[in-house]
């Protein structure tokens, strides 16, 4: 076990994957000499050479499109999209090519591509640097979408994503890059939990609280605060956003009868909507209250002085828990069918 930052854990995972497989190549803007704007690839070009860690021209469709060609040639490219809001120029290549090539060719062409996306807000950046675009991709079949919440998962799941024969979007919560945690670098990948699996972080009996990426840490704080008020919260770190590990969430909701989903992305058509609908279909009779979503507003990401109003924080998620519990201090009346 070693203590390392989230950022360092991704770096170590990338290094391990590159050591294990000479076909793994990294591509992105500023990832070579500079080591990435967040230093995630720090030192890798020096150690593996310019052919393994490529600084690319500033063209996101170009990065993903050429990575597809490298896949045809037998490579396993790992592409860094510098910021969440910069992924859209590559959207066509991701949605029309990366996601569909395996289906198009009846399984003959594999696209074992990993796309790393630093995402989410909370770092005081200008526009386009704080977005949560994951739902665009969970809506696209052929892609796997994961989001990591702690250094150990960051280390393990980047390697799982790279080893996977399907394309994987790997969403990194950039505001957690400097958080520290224990990482077992000797962990055997085959013994690690599946990349598709959700994880129950705290056992609880009153409310199931589902989160992923940056809000998992907040959700754990919520569980403590709610516990102080006598509410027992079961926190689930989703880890995989497509597919969602519904059996784990369902088992929890059957136990608690209450479901709160939190994410930074806007509510309309978001992952929370899908999870709420799916759980309602699966265990309607077990629900004591309608599923509750605590999300970013349906607005463009605001300028940084206002981002704290947009991002679900401890108090807003606690309010969501109160709503699920029908507590009188909550804002449940704002949420009803009357508006």
């Amino acid at each position, binding site marked *: 076990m070693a203590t390392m930052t989230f950022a360092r854990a991704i770096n170590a995972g990338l290094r391990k994957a590159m050591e294990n497989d000479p076909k793994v*190549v990294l591509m992105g803007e500023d990832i070579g000499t500079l080591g990435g704007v967040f230093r995630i690839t720090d030192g890798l070009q020096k150690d593996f050479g310019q*052919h393994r860690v490529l600084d*690319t*021209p500033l*063209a996101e*469709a*170009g990065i*993903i*499109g*050429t*990575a*597809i*060609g*490298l*896949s*045809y*040639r*037998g*490579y396993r490219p790992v592409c860094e999209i510098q910021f969440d809001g910069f992924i859209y*120029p590559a959207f*066509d*290549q991701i949605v*029309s*090519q990366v996601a569909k090539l*395996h*289906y*198009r*060719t*009846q*399984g*003959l*062409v*594999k696209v*074992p591509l990993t796309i790393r996306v630093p995402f989410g807000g909370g770092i005081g950046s200008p526009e386009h640097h704080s977005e949560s675009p994951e739902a665009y991709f969970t809506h696209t*079949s*052929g892609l*796997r979408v994961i989001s990591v919440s702690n250094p150990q998962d960051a280390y393990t799941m980047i390697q799982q994503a790279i080893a*996977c*024969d*399907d394309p994987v979007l790997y969403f990194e919560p950039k505001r957690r890059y400097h958080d520290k945690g224990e990482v077992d670098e000797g962990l055997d990948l085959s013994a690690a939990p599946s990349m*598709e699996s959700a994880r129950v972080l705290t056992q609880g009996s009153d409310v199931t609280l589902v989160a992923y990426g940056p809000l998992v840490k907040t959700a754990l704080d919520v569980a403590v605060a709610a516990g102080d008020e006598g509410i027992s919260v079961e926190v689930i770190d989703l880890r995989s956003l*497509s*597919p*969602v*590990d*519904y*059996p784990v969430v369902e088992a929890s909701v059957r136990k608690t009868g209450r479901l709160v989903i939190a994410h930074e992305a806007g509510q309309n058509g978001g992952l929370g909507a899908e999870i709420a609908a799916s759980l309602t279909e699966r265990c309607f009779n077990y629900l004591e209250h309608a599923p509750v979503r605590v999300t970013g507003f349906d607005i463009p990401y605001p300028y940084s002085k206002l981002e704290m109003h947009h991002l679900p924080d401890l108090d807003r998620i606690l309010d969501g828990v109160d709503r699920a519990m029908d507590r009188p201090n909550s804002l449940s009346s704002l949420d009803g069918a009357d508006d």
Partner: protein
Amino acid sequence: MLGEDSTPHPQERSRREQSEDPEFLQLLDPSGQRVARPELDRWLADVDGEGGARVLAGLYEDMVVIRRIDMEATALQRQGELALWPPLLGQEAAQIGSGRALRQDDFVFSSYRENGVAYCRGVNLNEILRVWRGNASSGWDPFEINMATPQIIIGAQTLHSVGYAMGIQFDGADSVALAYFGDGATSEGDVSESMVFAASYQAPVLFFCQNNHWAISEPVTLQTHITLAERAGGFGIPHVRVDGNDVLAVLAATREALDRARQGGGPSFIEAVTYRMGPHTTADDPTRYRDANELEDWAAKDPILRLEKHLESRGLLTQELRERVAAKSDEVAGVVRNGVITMPEPEAMDVFKHVYATPNSWLSRQEDHYRRYLAQFEHHGASAAGHVSGGQH
């Protein structure tokens, strides 16, 4: 002055052909006479040498055969056996001249119209029309013939070819990646980005642009104010503009570009100026947007006709050759037609196959539900298809 726009309408400009352009490479003039171009002649030693008759006969056969495949496919579409077909009529020299210059270990990324190139790559003729019958989204195994399956998103494949070429570079191989695309595609951002990447990494890729003058209803002049070849110059990529209806010019220019790439000279761009004699697809009606005179002008420049004139001038267009090529065309057309008619139908549950390479819990559940849904009808002795179309409206 307001309202007095001196810029000619794109349609007007499209009529001004640039075949007098000295940069325009031609080795066979429209009368079939061999024109000397020292810079290109060196790539045609086999054509101009002792075994030339055999090489020319081979090119002639290929062009006639792919025209026949094209006509057969159009007929199959008209007979309701294919959903759609994008004809290559008129582009035979561009596709055979370039396709026959390739080595087996080169890799082609094309659009949907390069079925003549696929023929050169050795595609299984039973399967070439599978896509167009709606029985699959790909008509061949890309790794069997080293050619990616047809790309429908305009220009997207150019980036794939550059990535593949970067992989060739990493591997230290001397293969070349080919990107086939049309005049319309040059306006797509992907094509520009692919040229940026190719130039930056000096990747062994050949951009082969068939300027067939029309992107559905839009003339090439709507896409560009300079020649398409000149575009490549802006990226620092060597480029030539060849007569795309001259199979020898295309063959020579392609060989030169491939050789440059194999020697580490990086990317090249060839603009093959040709003409889409047919509609964009069988669903298109070109009489709505183009002049019959234009078609007539280009019919006079027909690539097969031109090669026939050349063969004739060298006394090579023998009755024996004509008969052999006709027999081969008949045979190929028969295989293609039979392949379509006898093509196995996909199974209902194939709809879920190959979405992912690894098991996916969400999709497995959906698949399982649909299987059980369909099974209900089997139980009652009716097919699901019967149910869907079965008068429950």
